[in-house]
């Protein structure tokens, strides 16, 4: 395994984790729809128990995404997390709220009252996808940082990564394309949540309301996603000269990436078709419940292809707007060949992990959530 292959392999794995995370954001989408779809206390409880049995997967995927990024591309970890401080802190804070809210919201003695925890879940549902999407938007639009490794030899100020403005990441929301991607991720999460409810909850009212809501969310998703996509295809991108490793601006870089990597293009097209197929068939067929699987796989493929275009084919995946040569590429920010190789051996276990997750998921979802189960509370419920 040569170094360049390992760097590409690990960018693929990090991208796959990112793609799985966006799929699993259906949990957040569901939380943001708690009061829209759940009109009675019982319905809200059914919704919370439906997403509540999956929230840990989303949370764990986020943590693993962070850990894998740290292990494979530590310079991104140190530069982005230490620089875009406020964005990451906001994301973390809203995930902290989620972690306790499922368990605490229905418990007696919870200090803040049931409604507060449900609002926490709603907040995590809205802010989580928007902030994560906006942060990922900077992979294409860039961020304001500099890196100077020689700084380590300055004992008075040895920090090598510096942010070039005092907003520390919040400035990302002033870039319309970042926000576009954030909102696209948000509405996609809501679409997936609606499809998940249709699949997972056996309740005519929730199903009917979810189907109705699906149309509105789909229009809003397409509006923001297509706006971002068109801009992304036409925009100048941050390219890397394979010989000199110099970063330069290249017109239509991401469009060219798709053309020069036809497999990635096919993956993206298959992903978009999967999402659209799931939406359209669910809207047309009142008994079809499998939309979440098509939409989920479509989401994974689409996000995977977007992220591959950010890092593969001589592209700077985290561009610096203030010093182009400080931009991060998979070559200049990765771990050593030894570490990537060790981690690659560990990654062989990933299919096994996915298999047991799938098995456990199926076991729990064999019977759909219904009113009787939630009302009798034979088992642990939220």
């Amino acid at each position, binding site marked *: 395994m040569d170094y360049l292959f390992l760097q590409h392999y690990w960018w693929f794995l990090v991208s796959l984790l990112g793609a799985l995370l966006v799929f699993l954001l259906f949990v957040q989408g569901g939380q943001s729809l708690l009061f829209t779809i759940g009109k009675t206390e019982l319905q809200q409880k059914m919704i919370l128990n439906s997403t509540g049995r999956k929230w*840990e*997967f989303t*949370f*764990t995927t986020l*943590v*693993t*995404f*962070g*850990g*894998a990024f*740290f*292990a*494979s591309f*530590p*310079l991104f*970890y*140190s530069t982005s*997390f*230490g*620089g875009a*401080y406020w964005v*990451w*802190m906001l994301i*973390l804070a809203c*995930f*902290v*709220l989620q*972690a*306790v809210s499922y*368990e*605490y919201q229905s*418990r007696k*003695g*919870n200090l*803040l009252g049931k409604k507060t925890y449900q609002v926490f879940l709603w907040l995590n549902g809205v802010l989580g996808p928007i902030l994560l999407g906006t942060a990922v938007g900077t992979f294409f639009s860039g961020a304001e940082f500099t890196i100077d490794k020689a700084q*380590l030899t300055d*004992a008075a*100020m*040895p*920090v*090598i*990564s*510096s*942010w070039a403005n005092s907003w*520390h990441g919040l400035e990302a929301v002033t870039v319309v394309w970042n926000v576009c991607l954030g909102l696209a991720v948000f509405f996609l999460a809501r679409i997936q949540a609606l499809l998940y409810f249709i699949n997972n909850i056996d309740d005519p009212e929730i199903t009917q309301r979810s189907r109705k809501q699906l149309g509105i969310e789909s229009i809003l998703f397409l509006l923001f996603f297509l706006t971002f996509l068109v801009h992304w295809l036409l925009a100048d991108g941050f390219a890397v000269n394979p010989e000199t490793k110099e970063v330069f601006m290249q017109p239509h870089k991401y469009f060219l990436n798709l053309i020069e990597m036809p497999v990635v293009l096919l993956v993206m097209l298959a992903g978009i078709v999967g999402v659209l197929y799931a939406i359209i068939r669910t809207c047309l067929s009142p008994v079809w419940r499998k939309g979440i699987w098509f939409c989920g796989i479509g989401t994974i493929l689409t996000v995977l292809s977007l992220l591959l275009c950010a890092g593969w084919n001589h592209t700077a995946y985290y561009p610096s707007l203030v010093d182009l040569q400080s931009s991060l590429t998979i070559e200049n920010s990765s*771990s*050593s060949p*030894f*570490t990537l190789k060790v*981690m690659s051996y*560990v*990654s062989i276990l*990933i299919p096994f*992990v996915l298999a047991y*997750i799938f098995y*456990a998921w199926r*076991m*729990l979802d064999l019977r759909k959530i219904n009113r009787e189960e939630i009302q009798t509370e034979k*088992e*642990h419920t939220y």
Partner: protein
Amino acid sequence: MDTSLVDWSRAQFALTAMYHWLFVPLTLGLGVIQAIMETIYYKTGNAFWKQTAQFWMKLFGINFAIGVATGIILEFEFGTNWSNYSWFVGDIFGAPLAIEGILAFFMEATFIAIMFFGWEKVSKRFHLLSTWLTIAGATLSALWILIANAWMQFPAGMHFNPDTVRNEMVDFWAVALSPVAINKFCHTVLSGWIEGSVFVIGVSSWFLLKKREKSFALASIKVGAVFGLVASILVLWTGDGSAYQVAQKQPMKLAAMEGLYEGTNGAGLTAIGVLNPDKTKYNDSAEPFIFNIEIPKMLSLLAERDADAYVPGIVNLIEGGYPTRDGTPALSAAEKMERGKTAIQALATYRQAVKEKDEVAAQQARNQLDEHFAYFGYGYIQNPEELIPPVGLTFYSFHLMVLLGGYFILLFIVAWIWSVRGWFDKSAWLQRISLWSIPLAYIAGQAGWIVAEVGRQPWVIQDILPASASISNLSTSAVQTTFFLFLFLFTVLLVAEIGIMVKAIKKGPKIIHYKS
């Protein structure tokens, strides 16, 4: 470097870690206890044990949620607040974190869902397997993060690459199986088992005091006492191993733990002592203790496995000159700082020479860097006194932890005998002691981590990188803001957690089928 930024970054990490450690040990301990109870249910088919396990699982779930919440912050804080650290050693430190996510967190997250929601959906056998896999996942998670932490205390299996300006892993097994890592893992997980046992015995005692759920409480006490006794005896052994490793790898931490200023042959171990507040400098004439009781030669025996061996004190470690294990005189702090500065300067020279394509100069600088790299971190130290950790906090935390460790062994022995002989439910004094021992278990756990982390200051990576060179380039006010934000958030959630826990305990278990 702005020292207030360093201190606030430290404070934020300490806050998060200490809150996180309020919840993790109970997860580790209670998780095994409930799995043992479910195993008894699986073997006997007696529904009593199922309901008993389910009650403890309910408390486990309440505790687990807030443990997860505080844990996510910790992982990302390495990047947000310790940016330089993340690059300088990310090549080594990131790997255990990623493995933790891939192998441990997913196991925990997947099977905990079955454990809570699968009683009616999966077979008895698969449910039991899920319960064990949940706690196995939690324990594996502890393993990998403790390997990472141990590596910071004893950096092994790496070399410094001046081209990338970072340390790179060259031997994974040296990192994963270092003696410090193995000791730390065993000692930490066992302390969690103790906390779980004290919690189970304490809560069960509350039921006995209230004359409720007698059969449930006595059965839980039996399991908790045996499990706790085994854990507390083992923790004694791993504690000895941990202290030995500290003596070998972090002698300054050991000196602070013992309040030892002047080294000696046949050093005694302070059993109990009160530090002298008038001692403000390491080399002033004030006596270190107002009062102390020493066990003769014990420190030498524990630290060097030789009752007459030399153990250096703080003064010796700063001033050097004492004989090291290989017979050579130890370097003073000033000499180490000088070598550290030389190493940093050699790195600068090397990079400049590479830039100018001067291979001879680059090779010379590299040789100089390699020769002095063991002292690299000392180059960032301005004053030798920075090398002394807070002695009072380290000393008292260590002795409190040891004292409580001894107390728990006694508690478990008494609880076990009293429960086997059928005396426990008649002994209100023991029930009260058991109940009030719950906070002591938390204090012992916190004290242990204070020893480990405060005692190693100023180092983030022992001898290689001090805290002042590890941080992110942020404004102090930004870190202060997030510190208070998390302080508020975690405190509110802690109060909520305690409130929910108390209500759930008061409600009690659903013991329906069992008749005592």
